[in-house]
Structure formats: structure tokens, C-alpha cells
């Protein structure tokens, strides 16, 4: 992929980001920040790639820590967002949902 193709993708993605997030209700700022936070955990892919061509002990350590950091970012980010949003979707039926404790 040429550098200009990458720049094209970058610019278009920036506009998509602006469009998608505009006019979010304040109510959802915290979960949304948490969710986008989880998405940048995608940098873990970089860790997976660089550890593949790591060839000395320091690079092994750097790569492994990068993967661990990325995994914390991804797993923690999505789970915590899910917990927060779970608070919103709880239905005001105090008795009925006692047994249906929500799958996984």
C-alpha cells in the first residue's frame, strides 16, 4: 500500500470519526469514551507483529509487554464498557428479571 493510499484512508477515517460521534448525548460520554478507549487497544496487533521478528532478549521483553498492555486495554476496556451499559439496560421490573441473569 502506498503512503498516499494510507493517508487517504487516514483522512477519510478522521471524517467518519467526527461524523459518527457528533451529537452524542452527555449521558453516554463515559461509556462511549470507555468504548473508543477499548478500540485503540487494537495497537496490540502491532505487538503481535513485532514480536514475530524479535530476535534478542530485550525485544522479546518489549514485545511481550506490549502485547500484555494491549490485551489489558482491549479486554478491560470492552468488559468495563459492557458493565456500565448494563446499568442502563436494566429494566424497571424488579421481580421478573431475577431469574434471567443474562447469559455469559
Amino acid at each position: 500500500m502506498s503512503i498516499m493510499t494510507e493517508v487517504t484512508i487516514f483522512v477519510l477515517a478522521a471524517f467518519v470519526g467526527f461524523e459518527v460521534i457528533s451529537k452524542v448525548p452527555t449521558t453516554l460520554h463515559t461509556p462511549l469514551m470507555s468504548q473508543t478507549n477499548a478500540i485503540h487497544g487494537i495497537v496490540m496487533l502491532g505487538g503481535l507483529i513485532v514480536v514475530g521478528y524479535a530476535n534478542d532478549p530485550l525485544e522479546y521483553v518489549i514485545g511481550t509487554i506490549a502485547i500484555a498492555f494491549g490485551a489489558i486495554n482491549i479486554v478491560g476496556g470492552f468488559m468495563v464498557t459492557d458493565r456500565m451499559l448494563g446499568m442502563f439496560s436494566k429494566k424497571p421490573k424488579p421481580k421478573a428479571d431475577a431469574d434471567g441473569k443474562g447469559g455469559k
Partner: protein
Amino acid sequence: MSPLAVLEPGGDAATALYIVAFSLFILGVRRGTHPTTAKQGNMIAAVGMAVAVVTTLLLDGIGNWGLIAIGLGVGTTIGVVASIRVQMTEMPQMVALYNGVGGGAVALIAWSEIRHGISLGGDIPLEELIPTLFAAVVGSVSFWGSNIAFAKLQDLIPTRPLAVPGQQVINAVLLIGIVAACVDIAVNNGDPSQALFIGILVAAAVLGNLVVLPIGGADMPVVISLLNAFTGLSAAAAGFALHNVALIVAGTLVGSSGTILTMEMATAMNRSVGNVLFAGFGGAPAAGAGTGEERPHVSIGAQDAAIKLAYADSVVIVPGYGLAVAQAQHAIKEVADELEKRGVTVNYAIHPVAGRMPGHMNVLLAEADVPYEQLKEMDEINPEMPRTDVAVVVGANDVTNPAAKNDPDSPIAGMPIIEVDQAQQVIVIKRSLSPGFAGIDNDLFYEPNTSMLFADAKQAAADIAAEIQQL
């Protein structure tokens, strides 16, 4: 290399799968903008992430599986345990921490890339080297800045602004030094110096600390959001360096959406982002507030408060971070239930920055099963205030301070507030008269129609609920 290597890096199949992944991210974030679809949206984005990770693991050239397993295992375990243990009140610092590790990962990957380039004999093409340097600097700033933000919110270090004399100058010198070192590495890309690169990482780390330390606790959410955007951009830069389209799109998406969120938050606080970053707001007037003699105020007990509330027609509850700290959301809900049984109309007034982050209070009240319809935004509730019999302020402070409207010299002048001073009567439940995050005295406490109930929010709410029951 890898036993699984079935996809060629940059090949059509891998790229197609990455396109699926980032499309799911965009759909997921889009659904995240409505309360009813947000949970589903988060799930969609998570599936996108799974697609991206699996695709990468299938790439030719992926190796050192033992290390990958260790990294994934340790990271996943920490992530799972931390997100199950965290209290809803601690959400802002949790986001800060996750953001920090993301930035840290970016910086480490950049370092590894540079080492790899040097081991191949230098001559790293500029179109890879420049994004790598950018990723290293921004990732490092984000890592350290987020950790400071976390430490401040977790009360590990003082939330008051900590400024070094000549702060701005030191920051400027560091920034110029970093840029100069980057230029040096880029110019000498035939034989880049690793020592200089490590110097850049360290200088960026110091800069990250120095930029966030002087910012007060109240502004921390804006900072976290900004650092979130930074980490996104640094991830996109890493994508340029590694020619990985998933990283570019996802990182950019977070960068631009994070920027919007940051500006919206700053607007809600009536501040500019620059002002948040450089004003060292939230500490200067503290001395004045502390030394002044005690001003006259009215203090009442739970029984009086219960009587005022029970015989009102309409009550507005103004929750703040103090409510969250005291875990009083359930007790407050009980008070509201008792009042509603007696036919009193109860609403909640949510300031845009109530809690410690926009939307944080909504999460906490939702946790206590407060119906969504009763949560009124500031612009909706303020016109109702003069017709409100009793406004109950629970653990909120600065966001109710009439000085924001009346005193142009106040540090919070112009900040939008919940106009509780317009209500017929005000009850403030608070442990003491101490100032809030902004570090200034609240004029509301000394208004003639304000009664102070000095107590822990949870205990006070429980007492009031019990008293109302007996009336």
C-alpha cells in the same frame, strides 16, 4: 515460521478481514451513541476486535508463540479481574489506566520497530520512520499522563494542581528537544541512534508527567479524553509504520471521536481545552477559602429535612460526586420512593459534569434503578427551579455555586450551573463546608433559604427515608 501462517501480510485476504473488523468498529461506535443500542454496539465493536486479532495471528511471519501466549494470558487476566472488581464510582480512573497501557503499548512497539530497523542495517524509509517517531512520543506522553491522571483520581497523589516553577518553559524546552531529536534521527535515517531514540522516550515520559501534574482533579476527565484521542492517533501512526490498515482506521477513528468528546466536555465546563491544559485551574484560591472566618449558615437534622421534603409538592435532587463516593445512590432512591408514595414529584438534575466525568452520574443512578425519565439535564431543569419547593443537593458543590453567575471574578465564572438557588428551599447534604474540586467557597451554603445537613450522604439519606416513613 508459524504453523498457522495462512494469510499473506498486506494480501487481499488479510486486508478484507481487516476491512470487516474496522467496519464493525464504526458500526459499534455508531450504536454507542444511543442508550438503547449502546450495549449491542459495544458487543459489535468487540467482535470486530476479535476478527482483527485472529486475522493478525494467521499472518505469515507471526512467531514466538510462547511470548504471544504469555502476553495475551497476562493481559487478559489483568483486564478481566480489573473490570470485574472496579466500582462504578472508579470508572474514570479505570478508563485512564486502560488508556495508559494502550499508549505504553504503542511506545514499546515503536521502540521495537526502531531496533528492528537498526538491526536490518538502518536505512529505515522516512514514511515508516516518521510515524514511528510520532507513535513513540505520543504513546509515551499518553502512558505517563494517563498514569498521573489515574493516580490523581485514585487519590494516590494530591488532586490539587502541582506546579513546578517555570513549568511552561520546561515543557516548551522538552518539546523542542524532542522535536529536534526526532529531526536528527530522521535526517540520519541511514544510521539512526538508538540511544537518542531512548532519550526521546524518556523526555516524552517527563513531558507527560509535567503536563498532567498541574491539572486539578476536576479537569481530569477532559485530560483523559484528550489522552484517549492521543493514544488513538499514536495507534494510527503505528499503523502507518507497520502498513496495517486496521490500525490506521481504528486509531484514527478513536483520535477524531476522542477529539470531539474532549471539546464537548470542555464546552460543558465552559472552558477551552487550552485553558484546561495550561491554566492550572483549581488550586489558586484555596488559601483564601480556608483562612476566611466562618460565615453564618443554617444547620438542620434529618428530621427537619424529612418534614421539609414530605410536605413539598415537587423535589429536585441534585447528585454530585460526593453521592457516588458515599455509595448513597441506593439510599437516595429510597428517599425518592418514600416521597413518591406521598405524591411528591421527584426529579434528578444532572449537571453535564456531575460525578467525575460527563455521563458518570447517569451510570451511577442507573445502577440504583432510578428511572431514566427522572434524570433531567441541566437546560431542562433550570427553568423549573423557581417552581421547585425543595432542591436537595447531595454531595455536589461547584456545579451549584451561584458565584458562577453572580461573581465575574470567581474562578468558575461563566461555568453553567444547576440553579438550585432559585428553588424555594435548598437542603445541602454534605460532610462539612469545605470547598469542592474548584477549591472555592460555595455561596449557596450561606443563602438564607439554604439549610445544611452535615452528615455522610448515605447515612443522611437513610435517616431521612426513615423519618419520612414515620410522618
